[in-house]
Each structure stands twice: as structure tokens, then as C-alpha cells.
């Protein structure tokens, strides 16, 4: 980390913290009894998780016919949810890998939670390709391994197979990255813990003692993983977009999809980080670590990526018109004016129009607006995937087969349930591990702590000079 900080930067740690304060503040949520808010949230999350399990059993037991997909629309909420969750899973890696490489200090306040969010979002995303299969119990057929069925090799031409590789690679690297970052912090918690907690953290921290060699290896590993993860940020959603881009269906068969999907993924990922952070900093009393400075930075990313997806939407429309190809033209005409016009309106207003409010600095620094915008964007991005998947399929080449689709309660239950799965994981994480990377925050204290820069720094200099004298 560079220790040179531009004087115009705002401090990233407020409240005149010492190293010890940081340890105390961030470890506190794992050490004190759960708050009422946490208990209520956890009960809610587990309830939704139960709904998820019920709907899952119904789906596996009864068949995909318990959903309302049909002969024309083979994918609906299932794959919409999949792409949505994968998209959300992008922020973590982006923050930890790309921002690490770009030496963005503000990432330290949010990277831990964002990475955890990534892991859980990818877990949620991974559910849907498995659930949506007609014969879930044969799902292992998609793994290429020597088998007694021929041996039957998988079809390497299929984007769905590429998905399997992309998602599993992404999940593995993200998990390693996240856990590597956790090790020194878990050791900090271990050092403060007693009894059975101590045992647990002893195992979890892999015997970390904080030796210089440990730190050196840790730094190297972080960098290597960051290097590995960086292309993944771009590749995962690119490959997910291939599911559509390589098909022959007008509205899917589009070369713009890879960059468009990646931008959308970062967009939705940051929105989800915002939703979580705005609540977490309040509930766990971490406002001094996740400052308005952090929130504003993320809102800037949201503004940028929001305009990127907006451009993509408009480009799509333009190219459809410009192509002179009737099916392509109709597919987009239908998206906007067809029976699913409301989902297009939802997508456009939530993803393109709403984020424009962040041109205003006031809005960027408003907790209230940030929170609502993040929810809007998450809804809008869900709509975007729904528009791409269901609307496109509903009216393709042959008018005779045009259809309409709305979900059954089982499909809705699976979506809500996946939120339950996500929040159950996240809430447990928040109780067990430090939600902010202690070591990394300490790292930037001297360069970005409020007592060292800005108006406070004068006082600091005075104190130091006095001591020196």
C-alpha cells in the first residue's frame, strides 16, 4: 500500500482510532451476545430458507411441471435467478482483486463483506442450474469424468458446460481469496477468545502467529490470487452471457452480450454490497470504518456501470433497427411494446434512469437514497435478466408458438428462498468472522485515518512534534 495519499482525499477511518480500537470495534460483533436485530433477521432468513427447501422438494418430487414454464418458454425465473445471483457475485472479486491491483484504499472497508457476499451469491446461483434440470438426480452427467456410461463424454460445444467450469473456477478462487484474507483476522479473534471459541478459531486460523514470514507469504498469495481472479471477473459473466449469445434466438444472438453482462454484473454486485453495508455498518456500529467516503466511492462505480448498461440497452435497440433483420427487429420491438412491456419499463427505470441521481454529490452521500437506489438496482437487474430470458423466448420466430409465462408459487418460493439461503449464510458469517478486514484496515490507518490527514492532521503533527521535542 502506498503511503502517499493525496491531500484532497477524505479520511477512510474516522473517530481517531488506534490499532487497538480497530481490533476492539471490529471483533466486537463476534464476541458479544447477538443483538435483537440480528436474532429477528436470522429467524426471518431461516424461515425463507425453509421455504426454499420446501419448494425444492416439491420441484424434485413433482417435476418441473410444478412450475409454469411451457413448450415455448423453457427458462423463466430459474435461469433469471441464476444470472442475477451470478451477477451479484461479481462485486466481491472486483473489489478484492481489481481494486487491490489498482491500490484503491477504500476497498479495505468493504472487501471482506463483499467477498463473503460473493461466495454466498455464487452458492445461491449454483442452486438454479441444478434445480432447473428435469432430472436433477442425473445432474452429475455434466461433469467430465471417466464413467461407465459408454464412457459418455460431455459436449464441449455447449455453453452450459462452459458455465459449469466458469462458475466452479470462480467459486474456488473466490473462496480461497476470501479465506486467505480471513486467516490473520481469525487469528486476532483467536488471541482474544477463550475456551471452545478459542479452539475453533485456532483451527480456523491455521496456526497463524503473525511472523514476518507469514505476512510476506500472505501478501504474495493475496497478489497471486488477485491476479488469478482479475480475468475471472470478466470471464464468468462473459461465459454466462454465451448461454444466450451463441444461440440462434433473436434477442439472444447478440455480440454485445459479454461486455454488457459484465457491466451489469458489477452494477448489481455493487448495489447488493451497498444494501448490505448500509445495514451492517449501522447494526454492528461500524460507521467509522464504512464511512460515507466508502459509500460515495461505490456510488460512483454504480453510476458508471449504470450508464454502461444504459448504453448497452440503447445500442441493442439501435443495432436491432440497423440490422434490417425482421426477427431481430421484432424481438426488440416486442421487448419494449409486447406483452412484457412492464418488465422492460421496470428494467429501464431502475437501471438507467434511477442511478442518474448519483450525479449529485448530495445523493451519493445520502444513506437513505443510497439504500433505496441499491434496492431499485437489484430489482432492475432482476428485470433485465427476465427481459432477456422470458420475453425473448415468449415470442420468437414462429408466431404459432408464441406464448406467455407467469410463475407458480413454487418458482416464487424458490427465489425468495434463495434470498433466505443467502441471508442465513451472511448472518452467520457476520457473527463468526470479522466483517471488516482488520489487518487491512490497520494497514491504511496511518495514511487514511482521520487523525492523520485532513484538518485533524495538524493536531497530530503538533502532538508528534511536542513529543519529539
Amino acid at each position: 500500500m502506498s503511503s502517499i495519499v493525496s491531500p484532497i482525499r477524505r479520511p477512510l477511518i474516522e473517530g481517531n482510532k488506534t490499532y487497538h480500537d480497530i481490533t476492539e470495534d471490529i471483533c466486537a460483533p463476534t464476541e458479544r451476545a447477538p443483538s435483537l436485530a440480528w436474532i429477528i433477521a436470522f429467524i426471518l432468513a431461516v424461515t425463507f430458507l425453509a421455504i426454499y427447501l420446501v419448494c425444492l422438494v416439491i420441484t424434485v418430487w413433482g417435476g418441473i411441471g410444478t412450475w409454469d414454464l411451457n413448450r415455448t418458454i423453457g427458462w423463466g425465473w430459474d435461469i433469471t435467478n441464476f444470472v442475477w445471483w451470478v451477477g451479484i457475485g461479481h462485486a466481491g472479486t472486483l473489489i478484492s482483486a481489481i481494486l487491490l491491483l489498482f491500490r484503491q484504499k477504500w476497498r479495505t472497508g468493504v472487501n471482506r463483506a463483499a467477498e463473503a457476499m460473493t461466495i454466498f451469491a455464487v452458492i445461491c446461483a449454483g442452486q438454479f442450474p441444478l434445480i432447473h434440470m428435469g432430472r436433477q438426480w442425473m445432474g452429475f452427467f455434466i461433469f467430465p469424468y471417466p464413467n461407465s456410461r459408454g464412457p459418455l463424454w460431455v459436449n464441449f460445444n455447449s455453453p452450459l458446460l462452459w458455465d459449469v467450469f466458469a462458475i466452479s473456477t470462480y467459486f474456488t478462487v473466490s473462496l480461497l481469496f476470501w479465506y486467505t484474507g480471513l486467516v490473520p483476522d481469525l487469528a486476532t479473534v483467536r488471541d482474544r477468545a477463550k475456551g471452545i471459541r478459542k479452539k475453533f478459531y485456532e483451527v480456523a486460523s491455521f496456526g497463524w502467529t503473525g511472523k514476518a514470514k507469514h505476512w510476506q507469504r500472505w501478501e504474495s498469495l493475496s497478489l497471486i490470487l488477485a491476479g488469478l481472479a482479475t480475468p475471472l471477473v470478466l470471464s464468468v459473466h462473459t461465459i454466462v452471457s454465451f448461454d444466450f449469445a451463441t444461440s440462434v434466438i433473436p434477442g439472444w444472438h447478440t455480440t454485445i452480450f459479454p461486455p454488457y453482462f459484465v457491466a451489469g454484473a458489477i452494477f448489481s454486485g455493487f448495489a447488493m454490497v451497498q444494501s448490505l453495508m448500509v445495514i451492517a455498518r449501522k447494526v454492528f456500529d461500524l460507521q467509522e470504518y464504512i464511512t460515507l467516503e466508502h459509500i460515495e466511492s461505490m456510488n460512483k462505480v454504480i453510476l458508471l456501470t449504470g450508464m454502461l448498461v444504459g448504453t448497452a440497452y440503447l445500442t441493442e435497440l439501435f443495432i436491432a433497427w440497423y440490422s434490417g433483420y425482421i426477427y431481430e427487429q421484432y424481438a426488440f420491438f416486442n421487448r419494449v411494446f409486447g406483452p412484457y412491456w412492464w418488465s422492460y419499463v421496470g428494467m429501464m427505470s431502475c437501471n438507467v434512469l434511477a442511478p442518474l441521481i448519483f450525479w449529485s454529490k448530495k445523493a451519493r452521500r445520502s444513506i437513505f437514497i443510497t439504500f433505496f437506489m441499491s434496492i431499485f438496482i437489484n430489482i432492475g437487474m432482476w428485470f433485465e435478466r427476465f427481459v432477456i430470458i422470458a420475453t425473448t423466448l415468449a415470442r420468437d420466430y414462429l408466431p404459432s408458438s408464441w406464448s406467455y409465462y407467469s410463475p407458480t408459487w413454487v418458482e416464487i418460493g424458490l427465489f425468495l428462498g434463495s434470498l433466505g439461503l443467502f441471508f442465513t449464510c451472511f448472518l452467520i458469517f457476520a457473527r463468526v468472522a470479522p466483517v471488516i478486514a482488520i489487518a487491512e484496515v490497520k494497514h491504511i490507518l496511518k495514511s487514511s485515518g482521520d487523525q492523520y490527514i485532513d484538518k485533524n492532521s495538524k493536531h497530530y503533527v503538533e502532538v508528534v512534534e511536542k513529543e519529539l521535542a
Partner: protein
Amino acid sequence: MKDNQQKDQTWIGLKDISKDPEYIAEVHSEFRDVPISKLLVGHQNESLTTSRRDFLKILGFSVTAASIAACDAPVRRAIPYVHRPEEIVPGVPTYYASTYVDGGDYCSILVKTREGRPIKIEGNSMSPITGQGTSARAQAHVLSLYDLSRFRQPLIDGAKSSWQEVDQLIVSKLNSGSKIGIISRTILSPTFKKILAEFKTKYPNTQIAMYDPFSAAAQLAANEKSYGIRAIPNYHFDQAEVIVSFNADFLGTWISPVEYSADYIKNRKVDPKNPKMSWHVQIENNMSLTGSNADNRILVKPSEQDAAIAYLCNALGGTPLGSTSVNPEAAKALDRVATKLKAAGSKSLIVSASNNMAAQLMVNQMNDILGNLGTTLDMNTPSYQKQGDERSLKKLISDMEAGSMDAVFVLDGNPAFDNPWAGAFKTAAEKVGLMVSLATASDETAELSQVVAPKHHLLESWGDAEPKKGFLSLIQPTISPLFDTRQAETSLLKWSGAAPEIFEDDQPYYNYLKQNWLQAGLDWDTSVHDGIAQGSIPSAEVFSTKALPDLSTQSSTPLNADLELQFYESINIGSGQHANNPWLQEMPDPVMRTVWGNYLSVPVTWSGGMDYDSFNDLKDGDFAELTLGENNKTVTVMNQFGQMPGTVGIALGYGRRSVGAAGINIGTNLYDMMTEGQDGLFQYFVADVKLSGKVGKEKDIPAVQYHHSMGVTDIDPKTGKKVNVDEITAPSIKKGYQGSLVDRSIIRRANLEDVETFIEELHEERAKFEKLNSKTLYPYEEYKENYYEQGHHWGLAIDLNACIGCGACTVSCMAENNVPVVGKREVERHHEMAWLRIDRYFYGDVNNPNTVYQPLMCQHCDNAPCENVCPVAATNHSSEGLNQMTYNRCIGTRYCANNCPYKVRRFNWLDYTTADLFPINQPKLNGEIFGNDDLTRMVLNPDVTVRSRGVIEKCSFCVQRIQDGKLTAKKEGRALKDGEIKSACQTACPTGAIVFGDFNNEESELVKNIHNGLTYQVLEEINVRPSVNYSAKIINRDHKLDA
């Protein structure tokens, strides 16, 4: 061991004798008290050591493995033959020629049996009447053999009984003076008529009532008056250059549709070198299957039909027998028709379905004026396919009502349901001494009968038929009776006291029938083998209308009603007799595209808005109240293009109350709204009905097609220009743009006079596509050279001009390929499984459109988009160009279905076939179980896998038939001949619209077909290289008629 040095010691090897110390040590240590595992450590295979942990691991593994292995698909046991029956070779089908007869509905058929089970019906190409063709009803008849609602033994007062008791009861109640009524629909069998005559001799006071729910009584009477023969003329639609049909649905349901379709289409297939085809005008209000195939339609209200006939009669110089006042548009059009008729002279044909004698007399008059008798119709070999007169039924009912009938036998038909007097029949039946029903399966009449003496199913019966004079047809059984039933003929013989010795035989009627044929000098064995014969068998005239009053010779006058309701016969359910056949219930109505029910078709118009205007604002799936006087019914509405404003239409035969599980309460029964005309004949319309606005809505519409048109045009009231209305109305919140539908390369069509320019344009466009498609990453040319051009390369040619949309192929496909029936609720959700569907699009004038039917099945693309997206390679390409589906590999991602541009892939959403891994969810499929019973499963084709839940399926080009054909050729050591392999859809088609063949055989019919200049491929420009070729739709619309 220590004594091994003794001399008499046995030795087992050289080492024993050489006393090698090392060896001795080894032998000594053989039985040491150490665990073998320790002994072996270090110098033996480590895997032989088993520790406690290993043991537990293996134990755990085997328990898991055993429990996983226990999760297997349910095993159904089959029992092999101990003695092989004659004629049955396991795995080899046997075909028997027989005849499908259902009242007057006739088709000569071949029945395919496997291991003694009839599983499929094909057309009998030897038949001079129906030829290779079949109808959907004939195709589906094999399923009704395995109908769960069939009577399994005779019943007395609803209780199980025996034939002995039944015979005793009936004979004891009858004496030579008994007043007996016999009710039947048209009887085609001469031998059965002979038996009836014998019955009548025994009981002289027998009154025979013969009626047809869809009656031709007036036509029969008119023909008797005009030609002296009470029969239907033998029509030759192939000879006619101008065909004028007054509401006669001769391609769908009228008299002999299979025969007429084949004839009709001969003059409709267009040879581009010499473009010529017949001109067909349909005068109707309701869009019928025939009307949808017509070049022009003239819209007249049902009550105007007679007047329209009179108008044309007058225009042709005949004597009209009543009012000639028709609506002005129709009058103008009819003038033009008259001109065309006069020009065509004796090469024209006028038919009418009117049930008023005066109207039919005028039709005869016109045909005579034009000189058609002897060219397009003849009375030398008349058709007997309609013989009934409903007035005989009415008379019998009034006699029953009077309490004067001792016994009534219902041989055929369902008088307690399928006519407007059903209510009267029910009350009258209570006053009859003995009601006997001979129904095969439960129906409303059997329900109120004291005795049910069930007859065999057709496929278990012997019998004969004479559909046309001199054309005989035989029915032979293809399976032993499944239940304790008896031939109707045998029953009648028994009750009429035939000599007891004839019943000593197993099959008394077989002997009787054979004797009757031998006496007529026919070659019995050949006739049974061929299923048909030429000649005649004397049949007694058992039914006569002489006693009935004369019919009026004055035709009816149009009524000035606001709304008239037209009743029609649906192609699948008929008069209601097929209501319990799930294949027919699930076959979409060709015109309306609905399933499982009858729907009121209401007219749609357009007035420049973003949506169509429909009568009372009723939209698809709305409930509305239909009122006639006191009679009030709730019906479901469908908007129907081509329905005349001021009229609505609905099919009869639905709403059965007493029937098997599939048919019960499906649709609405409207027989009680039907009225009789001035002469007491059925009239298939009522005037002055009232239709309410929307009173509710079906959750979803059980229609397989939501968008119905491709280029219906009208004049935009704002701009005064002609626009495509469907393109404007298709989107939801903004008017669509022009060209969005008609510019699609799906349907190619032209009018006859434009054929030459059309072909030129088509070729130009195809050349453009070919240029586009040559720029591809797909190594298509390489595959073509290395694979497709090597052996066979299968393909289909479909002639859109020959396809009349009748749907026989779709039912044939279901039967051949074990396609599951899914029920109404599932079709509503668009979960239908049909591998072959017939898309129907309207085009042209929005108020009076033309129709094109497009059969669509898997196109077996050589660059198949479904194949490369499957992650597990469950669908792949054969070297013969087949797109194959491997069910066992399929994990059901549905990606292939999404990526199919033709949307022909079908997914097993639920466990439709009980082939599932979890048997627990089988009984409850929305409360509907079809085809899942052991009895019903007998119809399954053993050559085709029954698919389980969660896998995709689709048309295989009948790969089992291809394989069979190839094997036969191989066994016989010869090359495969063209036409040897026919797909199931091809064999069912009455018009020969579908041709299967090999692209690599230059001589094949397929190759000849695709070089006819009109050929195109659907969505050719996306370079998926489909193997199905369509021939463009050409119509002969006379635009002068529209002006």
C-alpha cells in the same frame, strides 16, 4: 510336518525332495498364529490388509451403494409365451385388413398388431374409396379398444350379470306380438341388415328407427324424388373445376371426408409448369375446415342458406323453390359464382348440407342444369353412408311416450344424448317395458337401460360394410374379446330365436357372415385378406321412410334475427361418440386450435385500433351466457376469424354426462338448444339467440396457438391504405409495424395467377439465403460430403396446398410414437406433447380470410442448433441426417428447446407416462390419468421408448420404421426402395401431403417433389439446414368476388 523326510512321504514339488532349507522354513511357518495382515506387510499387496477403519469404510460404502442401487425405475414383468401362437413372431408386427365403421363414417384400414395387441391403424391402400388415407377418428379408434369405461360384462339393472341371464330375461319378455323398437344410426352392414330382417320376421311388430345425429334425411328424400334412389350421390370432386359448397364440410365431417379430401386435392396440387387448379367457393357463416381451404368464402347467415341456394338456382336459370332474398354482398358474389359455374358447365359440382328437402331439390336441379350428373356426381354407385331419418326416431319416442312399446333395443347411437329430443327420450324410456342398450362403453342411453348387452369393440368383431353400391368391405377381429362381450349380431340372432346349433360354435356370427358372403359368390379368403371386395350381397330393406309424411317442397325464408347460432360437427368428437377418446380430445380443433371442449366462435372485426373488436367485447377464454328462450348456458368464447358478423358457432357432441373419465363434463352440451324444422328434421342453427358480455374467464385458454394470423389485411380508416392488421395488433402497448409478420420466411403463398412471378421471387430470395449461408463456421460441406451423401439422407416434403389440416397425421403420430396425453389443464399451460402439430394461419382480408395449414415437426436440421447446446450430448446427429434424441442421457436443461427456432421440442414436465423414478406421484396428475392404466398401456408401441419425466422428446422421423425398412432390405439382400419406408404421418394423410424419402435417391418421390419450383424451407436464412421442405401454398382466389 517334521516327518517329511520319510520315504513314503508324498511330495508336491521338486523343492520337497531337494530339502531346500529356505523352503522348509517357509513350510514350517505356514500356520503361524500371527494375523495374516502382519505377515504380509512389506512384501505383499497392501490392499489385502484390512483394518477396522477400512472395514467400516467398506461397510459404509456398501450400504450406501446398496441403497442407491435400490432406487431404480419400477420393474414391470412380462410373461413369455410358453407355446408360440400361430402368426405371432415376437417383435414382428402382423397387419390385418379391416374396416373402420362408425355409423356412416367409413374407412378401409389395416390394423397393426404386435404380440396379439392391435396398436396402430393405417389406411388400406387397396381400397378404391378411402385408399391409403385415414381420418383422425379412424386413427384413434385403436385407443377406444382399451377404453376403461367399456362394459366388462352384461348388466341387468346396473348389476353384473351373465349372457345366459340376459338372454333369458329378454326372450321371456318378448313374444311374437310384442311391440319392439330398434334404434340405430346408419347401418352399412348388409349382413347385419339381413339379421335385422330375420328379427323382424320373428317379431313382426318391430319398428326400426334409424337416425343420424348429423342428418342427411332431406338430401336422401330429395334424391329419391329427383333420381328415384334414396341414397347419397357418388361425388367426384377430382372431376370438378368449380366446386360450390353450401355449408357442407366435405373435407372435415360431411358424408365421406377421407374419400372427398383425396379426390378434392387431385385438382388442387399445382404444377408450376402448367399452373391450374380447381376453384372452390364455400357459402357459410362459421369457419369450417372446408371453408378454411376454400379459395373464396361467401358469408350468409344460417337462415339465409336456403335463400342463397334459391338465389343461385335462379341465377342459373332454375326454378327457385322459395325466397331468394340474401344479403347484398352475398347476392353479388353469387352472381359471379353463377357466371363461373356456367363457364365450367358439367365440370362443376354443387353440394349442400342443408337439411331441407326443397334446398336439396334445388341443388339437384342446379347440378342437372349444369350437366353434372354423370361427370362430377353419379347415382349408379351411390353412397349409403347416410341412411337415417330422424323423424323415425321422433315417432318411436312418441310411441314410447304413449306407453305402447314393450321393448326398445338401442343398437348404435346414443339417443339419450345426441339429438334435440334426448330429454323426451329419457322420460319416454321410463314407460318402456324393457330398455336394452348394446353400447360398448358407458353412455347416457345405457345408463337408463334395464339391460346392457355390450357388443364387441370393432377391432374384436366380425362384420361387413357396403359404403357404396357394389363396394364391399370386411371387418375382421384383431384380438380376442378383452371382456365378456358379444357381437350385436350374435345377440340379435339369439333373441330372434335362431337355430340353437349355430351357437355351439365359438363365433356364431363368423359362420353366418361367411355363409352370407359365400352365397353371394364372393371369394371369402381373398376378401378377408384384402379387407375389400367388389360385388354385392343381398341386404334386406329394413328401414323405410314410406310411412313418414312427405317433406315440404318450399324452402325456408331468411329470418331477421340479430344473432344466429350455427351448430356443427367437430372433426374429432363427432356427435359425442368419441368423447372418451383422449387422443381425439387432445387433438386440436384444426380451425380453432382448441382442445378438450367446445368453444363458441364469435366474430372479430377491426376498426383501426390497437386491438380487434369482438362481439360484445368477448375475448378468448371469456365465459358468456348464451340464451335461447328459457334455455341458458354458460359457454367459453374464442374469437374466430372468418366468422360472419351476426352469427356465432359452436360444436355439438360435447358436455357428456355419463361417459368414461376422459369425456365427462368436457365442454357444453347444446343438443337441447337445437330445433327441428317445419318438417320435423334437425336444423343445425337457431336464430334469435342472445349472447351476454363477459361473465367470467377461464384461467387459461386450452388453445395450442395464441397468435392466429400472418398478414390479415384491412383498410386503415385513418390513412385509407391497406395494412396488415395482425402486425398492428400483435404488440401490447403500441401499434406494431408493417412487415413484422408477413416478411418472415415461414409461410410462402401466392395466388394462382401470380405463380410465375412468385416462383421467380422465391428463387431469388433462396439464392440470397444460400449466399448468406455459405459464410459459416460450420463445416457443413465437409459433413455433407463425408456423411450425408454417403448412405441415406432422410427428409420430408410437405405440400401446403395438399394439407387440408384434418389432423389425421397428428393422431397417427401420437399412436405410433407413444406420445402421452396430458389433459386439459396441462394444455392450458402449453404443456402439450404432440411431436407433430399443424400450425394454422389466417391471411388476406381480415373479414373473410384465407387459411394456410402448416404441419410442423422436428426439421432434422443438418446444422441443428439444439445439438451443440446440450451439455451432455443427449441430442446428436446421425450420419443419415437424423437429429437423434437419447432419452437416457437427457438431464432436462431444456436448452435445446429454447434454441429450437421451430419450437418442436417437447419436455416431460410431469410424469405423464408413469415411467418415473418415483412411483408415488403417479396417481395425481391434476386428477387426470390417461394412458397410465395397464389396460390403456396395451396400445403402446413396443418399438418406441416410453419417456420418463424430465426429458426432452421430439419427432424422430419414425426412426423405428426407418430401421425396420433398412433391416428388411438388408435381410433380403437388396437396396432399399423408395416408398418402402413411410413415416406415420405420411401413412395417415388422406391427401398425400407428406412425403418421406431419401435425398440421395435421385429417383425418389421426395427429390422429385423438392424440385418442383415451389419448394422452400422454413427460416432458411438462419442456416440451420432443415431436412423438411415445404411447397408453397397457392390459392385460386377470385378477387372479383370480393369487390
